[in-house]
């Protein structure tokens, strides 16, 4: 794992939606798990709505929230 950790929230414009050929922007997204849903801001494609989730987010805060909801 020598490659650079992709970051999202700090610099969404670093990523381009390949289909729409536009840079991602921060947009409102609903995250949901086990009958709980909450709004978050994540990098999205302003045209097609593709949501990008970085590994740092998936393995960090997202995982913590998933585990907390599973223990409810």
């Amino acid at each position, binding site marked *: 794992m020598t490659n650079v950790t992709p970051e999202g929230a700090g610099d969404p414009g670093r990523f*381009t939606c390949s289909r729409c050929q536009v840079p991602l922007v921060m947009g409102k997204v609903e995250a949901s798990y086990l009958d709980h849903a909450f709004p978050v801001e994540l990098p999205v494609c302003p045209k097609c709505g593709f949501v990008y989730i970085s590994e740092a987010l998936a393995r960090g805060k997202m995982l913590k929230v*998933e585990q907390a909801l599973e223990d409810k």
Partner: protein
Amino acid sequence: MDGEHVKTWEARCIEEQPPACTAACPLHVDGRAMLGKLATGDFSAAFALYARMVPFPAIISHICDHPCETACRRAELGGSLRIRALERALVEESYATLRRSAQRNRKPKRVAVIGGGLAGLTAAFDLAMKGHAITVFESEGRLLDRLHTDYDDSLLPASAIAADLGQLASLGVDVRLLSRVVAGDGPLGLDFLIDSFDALLLALGRGPRPHLGGSLDLDADSHVVVDAASGATSHPKVFAALVHDRPTAGGEHPPYSPVGSMYDGRRAAVSVDRFLQGVSLVAGRSDAGAAASCLYVNLDRHAPEPAVVPRDGAAGYTPDEAMAEAGRCLPCECKECVRACEYLKHYGGYPKRYIREIYNNDGIVMGNRKSNRMIDSCTLCGQCGEICPNDLAMGDVCLEARQSMVRQGKMPPSHHDFALADMEVSRSAAAAIARHAPGTTASAYLFFPGCQLTASSPAAVEAIYAHLRQRLPGGVGLFVDCCGAPAQWSGRVDMHAAILDRLRDSWRDLGSPVVITACSSCLKGFEAALPEFQTRSLWTVLADVGLPDGARAALPGPFALHDPCSGRKHGDVQRAVRDLAGRLGAEVRELPGGADLTPCCGFGGLAEFVNPEVTDKIVVRRAGEDAADYLTYCAMCRDNFARAGKRALHLLDLVFPAGDDPAGRRDPGFSGRRTNRLRFKIDMMRKLWGIDMDEPQVGLELVIADDVRADMERKLILVPDVEAVIASSEASGEHVEDGVTGHRIASYRTGHFTCWVEYEPAGSAYIVHRAYGHRMQVRVLP
């Protein structure tokens, strides 16, 4: 969970039982904690623990008859701790720190204590600390008269008595000297005092008291009649201290004990306090006095060490000497299971505490179930049950808790989803086989290799199956399936039952043959749930029918033999394995604890899917117990050792070696195991039965570096998952491109899991740079 089960389990863990010194002391001084503080030089904390239980520390530290020292477990290892001398050192060093303040009592009662000896003054102290107003009536001209007359000043200096009495006076206890209480209603008459006080407590020692007759009932010997359970007399407001040194009915004369006297007074004070509160005098009392301790202590763990002798015997221990002597405290504790098990150690407690946490977790309706992961991290291996002096196995507790979690719909989906999905693949038509041997229509035996052996060593399974067909009469069918252990371990009772039903049906369809299994978990599971299988172990069968002619170990050894935890109770299998290794010419030695105390490799109970941090510790610890290559007869144990970097062989690797260095065979990982399982069926069907199955579609050409592959394994992401993401991304064009690295990043959701892959095309192939995932779903809000 069943509350009665929980109570029984809790009672079997004796870790919270008091150590021998505390149990033997009528006042239950916590010697272990006190010496622990003292050993670290915290004299004031140690003294506070002493003075919390002992009202008169200066006096008692000089004259205590120290039953604690008689009971001390160090006695067998260099001599008992010299606890009284240490208490005296504490008094010398820290008496000035003693601060006592009575409880504020909104409705203080007036209590008369008749008798100013150790018993009476202990009762006066205890009741004063509870905020009551105490008056002590003493017939002599001074308190503790007996101590002045019985003990020489060199044994008990008058200054020590004066210091402790000063502390008592500071609590506001009123003392009337030269005040002999008699029957009747005079100024010192018992009847008058009964009218004037809320309660009376007699602490007059063991002699007859004819002068109290008339106000209280006396027996034929003029002793006050006292209820042995509560200290109640014939008058409801009057209680008497039961006397520890009163002659017994058998005519024995117990010796006088200063600490015993204090206990007499303390017990009477409890009765008076209960009377004043209007509660039962006897219900739920926990002041039973001295007793034997049932705390198990493994003395073999400690080296003998002689007692520290003070340089100046008369002056007692110096602070340094006291610390050194206190350092000899073992301390008494059991925790035998915790020492042996990385799982039990990981959570910082011991079974009794864990059981309580697990039971509390089970009852939570609203709020966080904080023990879910702890419950699912146990490997259910049973080692603790073997070690425990009371046979308590945490696996029993955790399994019942898991079943309850599943019933309540509270089992975290992420804990077992992967393992159960993997199990379903093993059970699917793509992997499972249930057939008579080629060219036969009946089977006397049915070989059940187990889903993990076919996944780890498919060639060895093929070879040993051929050998069994050759040696066993009556036909040997092949039964490739999963025994359902993952369903059972994960608490899925209904799922497990359905799996067993299907296995039973397949077995009946094949004519109910004797089942031969290579896997200890399958053997254990079938014996418990499918006794009609009459299951035999492959290893005992091979011991009977012999190995292939001329079979010699691929390597001579020496090997350290690791027995799988699920075969702990199968002594016949353990003996057969050792016998077979010997016949192969392999030199084998035992690992610590032998077969009885063998730990899990980390796979058991599905713990490694829930808490790899714990199971890594388990396998690393086991792998480090012997430098030799490990020999085992469980495919998962072998693969887990290999993953931890430990050279390891399955017994079949010795007979049918794959490659030049069978002990260096790598862990196939979850991806490799799945591929092998599917490949095994395709190959067997073609080779043995001439049936061609559909070959798996040729997928994308993926380039995955070893470190990326290992990272995927840790995250439970399989190569086919990654392939699905890239295939979908390339077909739809749905991915982002990282402007810095030029890599494509795409996702694909299957079931409850979204898998992300960062990759780049390289000619006709794709280089995978990383994979990760999450369970949460996301969608853009309009």
